[in-house]
């Protein structure tokens, strides 16, 4: 199978490239033509491809002319739409980095483009592939939790420093609310079976990094159509000097009591005298690897990979509503996302 990687803009691109390069069942080709726009010192282009051990071409036209079966889009958030549409037009199955888009209009257009081209669209939400979450979801599906009443989650991290575009509203679409709301929104979507969000409130500030143009701390409250509430702390509140980027946790309140899951809990911890910092050696499974495998298996089998474009639209709708809530300083209704139910998921 031929797999193309569009752009090294997102920090996850390096992880995907290494994983793809290590596989024996795929050929990999990459392109990162916008690398020159990045600030001096940021990696990219042919040099990064060489470092990652993957083949490289200079333009997306060459990349897509290669005839890839699948394309992984890792560009800046606002460029996802153009790149997904180009990949779909080339007849490739698409895995798009999260968030799918920075507006519901873009997300729906991307979903429509993939549907029109007859190619599947998957959104890169790796946490839903963590074994602890898979187990939670399966046990809930089997009725072990009874009814879920409330969810809360944390997705805290360091302010993204390796790539300046994450904190450039023109390229990212926003800050912490854009970057860190959607993982938990995806997990809630999976647990609740795709029930749409109906009401959203958000509050945010830039107190941790006042020189940035985007919010760096935020709390988003989502009410779903079935009455379940979800509270997300999406803050980039992990200190920059911390030895670990951040993490994600989810708490579930159900008829069966309280369940907490922490996909990043498996770790050996200690202290480094050399580096004067905490040692934190995660030994959990590589979630990117599990997600990529699910995507490639679906492409190979001709099945529809999940989470699909519909999940991308629903999670984008929550973020869009959160920004409307921030602008209007009130709780807002979620614009009904999606007239076109082209995919089930």
């Amino acid at each position, binding site marked *: 199978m031929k797999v193309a990687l569009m752009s090294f803009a997102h920090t996850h691109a390096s992880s995907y490239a290494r994983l793809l390069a290590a596989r024996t069942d795929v050929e990999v080709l990459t392109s990162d033509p916008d690398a020159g726009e990045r600030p001096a010192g940021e990696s990219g282009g042919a040099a990064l491809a060489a470092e990652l051990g993957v083949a490289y071409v200079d333009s997306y036209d060459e990349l897509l002319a290669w005839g890839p079966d699948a394309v992984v889009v890792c560009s800046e958030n606002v460029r996802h739409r153009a790149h997904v549409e180009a990949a779909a037009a080339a007849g490739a199955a698409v895995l798009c980095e999260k968030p799918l888009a920075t507006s519901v209009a873009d997300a729906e257009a991307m979903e429509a483009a993939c549907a029109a081209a007859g190619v599947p669209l998957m959104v890169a939400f790796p946490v839903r592939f963590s074994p602890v979450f898979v187990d939670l979801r399966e046990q809930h599906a089997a009725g072990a939790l009874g009814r879920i009443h409330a969810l809360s989650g944390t997705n805290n991290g360091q302010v993204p420093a390796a790539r300046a575009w994450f904190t450039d509203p023109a390229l990212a679409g926003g800050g912490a609310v854009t970057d860190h709301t959607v993982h938990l929104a995806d997990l809630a979507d999976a647990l609740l079976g795709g029930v749409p969000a109906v009401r959203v409130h958000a509050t945010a*500030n830039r107190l941790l990094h006042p020189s940035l143009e985007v919010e760096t701390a935020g709390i988003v409250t989502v009410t779903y159509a079935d009455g379940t509430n979800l509270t997300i702390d999406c803050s980039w509140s992990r200190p920059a000097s911390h030895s670990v980027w951040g993490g994600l946790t989810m708490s579930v309140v159900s008829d069966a009591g*309280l369940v907490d899951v922490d996909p990043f809990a498996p770790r050996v911890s200690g202290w480094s005298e050399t580096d004067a910092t905490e040692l934190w050696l995660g030994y959990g499974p590589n979630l990117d690897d599990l997600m990529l495998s699910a995507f490639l298996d679906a492409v190979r089998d001709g099945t529809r990979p999940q989470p699909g474009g519909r999940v991308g639209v629903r999670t984008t709708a929550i973020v869009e509503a959160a920004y409307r809530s921030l602008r209007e300083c009130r709780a807002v209704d979620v614009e009904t996302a999606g007239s076109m139910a082209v995919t089930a998921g």
Partner: protein
Amino acid sequence: MTTVGMLGAGGIATMHIASWLRLGVDVLVHSLEGADELVARHGRGEVVGSLDELLSRSDLVDVCTPTHTHRALVEAAAAAGKDVVCEKPLARTVEDTEAMIEACRRAGVALHPAHVVRFFPEYSVMHDAVARGRLGDLAVQRYDRHGTAPGPGWFRDEGLSGGIVMDLMIHDLDFARWNAGPVASVRAVRSGAEGSGTVAANVVLTHRSGSISSVGGVWSAGPVAFRTRFEVAGTGGLLRHDSADNPVTWTNGGSTPDRDGYAPKVAMGESPYLTELREFLAATRGGPTPRVTAQDGLEAVRIAQAALQSLVVDDAVSLEDAR
């Protein structure tokens, strides 16, 4: 010798009487029910048959009754010229709380709201670090408080207790404000399928400083271990605590219901209730102002009342609107 007159003999009175006795004061108890049992369980204290007798014989009155009775009892204590400790929330509404504060002011007596979480050592050391600036400017705080739902009765009657927000979550609403200052607006949500008995609520605060806080509370229908946790992050770093993560002993194979063996005491160190009541008692004897004041108690009620209004209107509520 100081005499403390306790009103009420329920759950919180059990915690208070043990602490009062440790502090060496004489304890009187008056309650519609349970006073004899409370005193018998602790081996000291005297049951008195009327409110008037309790007020006339006490130096300090400790109101441990259901929330909806606080105002009348605090006003009676103030009219009798006695300093008052009153369990949280001070009252069910801002209006009642303001009336209680005014009655105590006019009578020249102190009113001490028993926001005991300010005296829990893990919370206390965290606040001290915040107050000393070790975390810099606070940007985001998270608090959770989960426990088994109280049984049927006034706790579950929102009209009487204010429900989970006013009764349980007010601890953390107070604490978030203690750390990050006045609150500008409040958004609350509450779920819980009708009839299931489990209630889960979340209150988000936007402080006037721009700092933000999330406070979660759960009353679980099924029995669960009581658990609290917090994470507080600022420009200078962050602090977190989870009551489930900090056991000072862990046993595996010790005592079981059918077998004697090693069983660690449930709590180590000084009871936060003892710390709290010692501070109130010292103030009554002319000592320093306690770490929590009647005004703090009023502001906590104001935030909780705004949260309840947020539930009704399903929108954010500004504190000014909530007045």
